[in-house]
């Protein structure tokens, strides 16, 4: 077909995907539209669940800051990130050093091997 992108191992067809997306989003929206609407307006049922506490006026109090995102990921990979962050030391001489080092390694690989 004219609109297929062949990769040699498979193909990509944007229009088939868009048709699938339209069908999937139709069903998703239909299911979402089936939700209950018998909650009582103006009572606590209108509010978000905040462990029973008063919901703060300012959104600041109920925001998860970006620092806390992927906390477990960072915690689990702490040794890896310790090494990686210490490489980004902010020291400009280190940065020049890495350039010289990589040039040296590539030279050794290309010229000697």
């Amino acid at each position, binding site marked *: 077909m004219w609109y297929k992108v062949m990769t040699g191992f498979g193909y990509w067809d944007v229009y088939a995907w868009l048709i699938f997306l339209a069908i999937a989003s139709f069903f998703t929206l239909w299911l979402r539209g089936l939700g*209950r609407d*018998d909650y009582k307006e103006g009572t*606590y049922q209108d509010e978000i669940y905040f462990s*029973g506490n008063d919901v703060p006026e300012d959104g600041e109090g109920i925001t998860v800051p970006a620092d806390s995102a992927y906390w477990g990921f960072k915690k689990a990979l702490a040794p890896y990130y310790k090494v990686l962050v210490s490489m980004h030391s902010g020291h400009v001489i280190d940065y020049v050093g890495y350039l010289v080092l990589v040039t040296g390694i590539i030279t050794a690989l290309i010229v000697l091997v």
Partner: protein
Amino acid sequence: MKIEKYLDIFPKSLWVFLVNSGSCNGCDIEVVATLSPRYDIERLGMKLVGTPKHADILLVTGPVTRFMKEKLERIYAQVPDPKAVMVIGNCGCSSNVFYKSYNLVGPVDNVLPVDVYVHGCPPRPEAIIEGAAKAVLKLEEKKKALLREQSELVKAGAE
């Protein structure tokens, strides 16, 4: 066509929200034991959910402290109708050894309308399961009452 219209044909499983209103954690551990493989209440479709907005039953453990009173009321209000309240443990039923303590509002039925009391300190998982089975019956009654009320309202509206 709303999904709750099908509920009589395909009844929904029991979803439970657990509130600790001042318990010593003994009852909460028994609730967890009920979920564990030996008793495995999830095979019956009953599960603990993370927000009262999904729940059918509010599970309360422990006596109600002054601090927890308004929070408990708010959480109760956030459970959609029809709803039932189940109290686990002697403290929640009668305040037990904390009776007339200075910082207690009292047992749970001073604050919320309670449907099922499960005694024991802490109650065994079998007792909790039996309480849940009774709560289902209560919940069905409430649902019928609610439907009757709605149909009357519809009739009154039609007239």
